[in-house]
């Protein structure tokens, strides 16, 4: 037979486990009780989708790569078809550039060498979206090598440097400090 005490304990446990996730009327939007129709999932089961790399290197995968390997992959994977020979630009923008931003005003090319503020953006974007016709087909190691190829070509790292989860976030991007947060109060 339930006592008042066991009843309230049961209620506490059932609400407590879900962390008040699926009950209560305190939603900010005032829409009333929570439907609670989401299915819990462990982070380990989200891994295949969780491809975002943060600027501090969070979520960079194991493995490593070099510019020499990247140069070969650049041709093998067909990167040159859009970005041109030696990544100097084709029907899509150059990845390796010599010219400086100055002199073009607001029309300046936002090159990796002179504009990009974070080396991790390269890893995230290449792995996420390249090669354009077949994104997310490169191995983590291949991505490291392509990143190394682009960074070395732009003289942002030594041509023999090894890129991995530790070294990549440490690459200094020259334009890093030239960004102004437009609306700080919105963050």
């Amino acid at each position, binding site marked *: 037979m339930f006592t008042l005490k066991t009843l309230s304990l049961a209620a506490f446990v059932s609400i407590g486990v879900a962390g008040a996730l699926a009950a209560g009327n305190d939603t900010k939007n005032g829409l009333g009780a929570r439907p609670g129709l989401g299915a819990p999932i462990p982070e380990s089961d989200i891994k295949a989708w969780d491809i975002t790399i943060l600027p501090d290197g969070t979520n960079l995968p194991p493995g490593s790569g070099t510019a020499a390997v990247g140069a070969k992959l650049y041709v093998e994977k067909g990167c040159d078809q859009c970005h041109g020979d030696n990544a100097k630009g084709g029907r899509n923008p150059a990845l390796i550039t010599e010219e400086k931003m100055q002199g073009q005003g607001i029309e300046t090319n936002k090159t990796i060498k002179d504009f990009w503020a974070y080396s991790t953006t390269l890893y995230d974007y290449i792995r996420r*979206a390249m090669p354009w016709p077949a994104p997310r087909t490169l191995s983590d190691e291949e991505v490291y090598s392509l990143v190394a190829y682009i960074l070395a070509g732009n003289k942002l790292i030594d041509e023999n440097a090894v890129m991995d989860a530790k070294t990549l976030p440490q690459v200094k991007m020259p334009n890093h400090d030239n960004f102004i947060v437009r609306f700080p109060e919105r963050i």
Partner: protein
Amino acid sequence: MAILKRRGGLGPTAPDQQAAGNGLLHRRALLGRGLMLAGAAGVGTGTSLSGAAAEPLEDAEWSRHQGTTVGPIGVRSKFEKDTVRVLSNPKGEPRTQHARTPHQLLSGQITPSHLHFTILHNGIPDIDPNQHKLVIHGMVKQPMVFTMDKLMRYPMVTRQTFVECGGNSAPMFSNEPVQASLQLLHGLASNSEWTGVLLSTLLDEVGVDPKAVWMLPEGADTPALTRSVPLKKAWDDAILVLYQNGERLMAEQGYPVRLLLPGWEGNMNVKYVRRIKITDQPAMTYYEARNYSPVLPDYKAYKFYFVNEVKSFITSPSFGMSLKEPGYYEISGIAYSGSGTIKRVMVSADGGNSWAEAAVQGPAQDKAFTRFHIPWRWDGSPAVLTSRAVDDGGNIQPLRADFVKVRGETLKPVTNPMGFANQHYNSLTCWGINAKGEIAHVYA
């Protein structure tokens, strides 16, 4: 003033309808029935309302036989075949595809779903809603997956809001006015009625860590488009949108579910959203670290621009139209602000020397297109039409000189209006009308 009264009856009214230079009339002129009659009597404006004599009337061909059969999906009149979007990449080469809304051919405030602008980076994914899932994870008490059938059971809200690409109006950065249609200049903005689940409802359920500051929504499209969005916006008014203008989302608008961040840069309104990661730092993804960081004249750049600021433009008359004869025209346009509600729109017919307040279609809604109108009697001499909007936060659309001082302009004229890509232009748009009635894009 007598002309303000809607129920003015038949009495003689409209002593002076002129509201600003070059023929701008008071915004309420001609709204009332009584005024029409007053006008017919030739009072006030000094212009006769009777044109050339009309032809005798006859039954037309289409009135004499049976029409075509009604189909399951409505179709437009074949006479409207030119009311279409302009495509930047109709063959779908491996680059971004843009479709621009033909504002110069539309009226009202809702953009028809099939004419809503869209930008897709690698085509439209063909997503089965029965298999699509949305996961919320990261700095939360309990990561959770929501299937579409579950999401459809949540309480929903409906609101109007515009979506505008951060790069809309980019040709306006040109140092000389680009002679292009309104559609090419400002077609990357549209307005719909959206229905969906407040994101805050789901964030409540997963339990967000108080130390979290950002969320990283990501799409199920091929490039897995992702942006960093302050959680503040998520709690404020973000919606997981399921319906657009009453029906399920258009495939190219993010079917079966997209993130809607009212008033914020279009690219952040992630389509096909399948994952939202809660974090304490932004990811500095490609689209925020590179594309949507506008370059300033001193080679610094803005980051985290987010807000589409207060803006307006005249849709009619506009570039490409021509005024056939002097006389009465209604100037009409669109105003909107990503910071709030349109409070007032001023219109000038003399390039900004004098201004009159336009009639604003009410009730104006938060972060939504707001239609404005003002009557105008063109005397046949050169005129420059422009509009300037103010929102309820007191934000005023900047004059071009002030805007360019801070944001810069190109060193050479922009030659391809679909090719130049700076962002977040919200200064004025001016239409110069010559004595022949031809309309050009001008800076005034």
